[in-house]
């Protein structure tokens, strides 16, 4: 199955809704509206010709330079029969970071979405147990967002002897 076939099948079904098709390093990728993420996942899962039934990965990305679409959720899927991989992104705003959960379709989405929530604060609507997973429960911010830079290695206001540098 070639990327072109997947693309034409998707366009046939969803028409203009899916945008930014590209092949980065041989993998088909596109953007979808965030309301449609489950429809796209379900269609990719059910369709006889596509059969993208293995959820490889879910993760988030923060793009502070895009007002209204700062947060992205990235889905990686795979068709194990034809060994085709696929990636798609949905964008949401920081102010209202709500995206539907994929846990009804994939058990594996459970912890991956919790991790994405933990680091980016994306609120997966309908998730059975959306709590922090790698960080402490008391944390009240989302550390992978770009507004939390790592400490500047060249700062001099710390006592070097205390920090071993």
């Amino acid at each position: 199955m070639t990327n072109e076939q997947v693309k034409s099948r998707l366009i046939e079904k969803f028409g203009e809704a899916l945008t930014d098709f590209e092949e980065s390093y041989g993998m088909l990728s596109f953007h979808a509206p965030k309301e449609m993420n489950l429809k796209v996942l379900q269609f990719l899962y059910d369709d006889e010709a596509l059969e993208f039934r293995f959820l490889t990965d879910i993760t988030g990305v923060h793009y502070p330079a895009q007002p209204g679409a700062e947060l992205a959720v990235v889905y990686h899927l795979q068709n194990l029969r034809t060994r085709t991989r696929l990636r798609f992104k949905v964008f949401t705003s920081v102010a209202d970071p709500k995206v539907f959960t994929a846990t009804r379709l994939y058990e594996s989405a459970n912890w991956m979405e919790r991790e994405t929530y933990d680091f980016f604060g994306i609120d997966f609507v309908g998730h059975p147990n959306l709590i922090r997973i790698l960080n402490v429960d008391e944390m009240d911010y989302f550390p992978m967002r770009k507004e939390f830079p790592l400490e500047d290695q060249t700062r001099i206001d710390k006592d070097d002897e205390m920090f071993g540098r």
Partner: protein
Amino acid sequence: MSNPHISLPQGSLEKQTTTLNLGPTHPATHGVFQNILEMDGERVVSAVPTVGYIHRAFEKIAERRPYFQIAPLTDRLNYCSSPINNMGWHLTTERLLGITLPKRVEYLRIVIMELARITDHIVCNGVVGVDTGAFTGFLYIMEFRELVYEIYEEVCGSRLTTNIGRVGGFERNFTNTAFEKIERFLKEFPKALKEFETLLVRNRIFIERTQGVGAITAERALNYGFTGPNLRAAGVDYDVRVAHPYSSYGDFKFDIPVGTTGDCYDRFLVRGEEMWQSLSIIRQAMEKIQELPADVYHADVPAYYLPDKSDVYTKMEALIYHFKIIMGETEMLPGELYNAVEGANGELGFYVISDGGRSPYRLHFRRPCFIYYQAYPELIKGAMLADAVICMSSLNLIAGELDA
């Protein structure tokens, strides 16, 4: 069953479950995992796994490090087979940069990766033996992990967290001693592995303790995102080395061992058979390496491969490239890439977004352990506590990878 002569609080006889904390640091968990088990006598009613005890924010740290400085982070993911993680990262970077490697480098990498896979499976299968009460096998084959560590030491100078590759190849060429040690490993390990398998595979106690324990169907395993030996034990022949060949894996003949039931016993057998396949791959690679020029150990990419120190002191270009690489000023191409390698316990994926800057805009590790550990409560539901322990070790959970 109520006795009129004994007055117990309401519900105390009906609620027969006990809450038991297994972990976070417990010898039976082989790492830092907490499991809050609800026990009915010796049987597990439900389990709540908690992770994150050694989370070190690798993805965040990677956002301010130049690409070549991210390699030491990857070594610390699955520390039982750190060269695979390390090579996986270098393969990702090379693909991002569009570097092609000479064949000899790719074969040398395959030798190292397969050695790492063997050591990982040695530890995992040995520990499954330990958890069923057979310490002998673990001690017996641990000697060969030591031998592999000596090979690493010979190639790069360190043993556990190796940092063995560089963008474009290896830091230095393999010495003759390294090749001798690999030959010695190839000669001596099969006998020990055979004995180790004889010790356990048809052992009555081992069979009773592992067969039917922690079983999962192929369909559930796929839905849970299983990869690697754990998925193959359930009967799905998905292997990244074959499905998406990288680093010349296409040049080698090997089988993908597949189980049927997906229980602890099958996972043990699949790992055992994978070690034999890895040995065969190493043998084939060693033969191919003999035919290639012996002085090639890195690609000719001066802009990304750190030059030799003697050149840095004498040649202007080498000095400039050295400076640019060390300061992280090498030009990266913008792009998005998902690249996966077959780690010892599953598909280890690297999702990189490069915006052309000195460090990745975003780097995400797809860590196989993290994804399938969520199936653990389902695997041990209704099993005995002792089975829960075996189930955990046979899944090959590595805390460093789980928490990243």
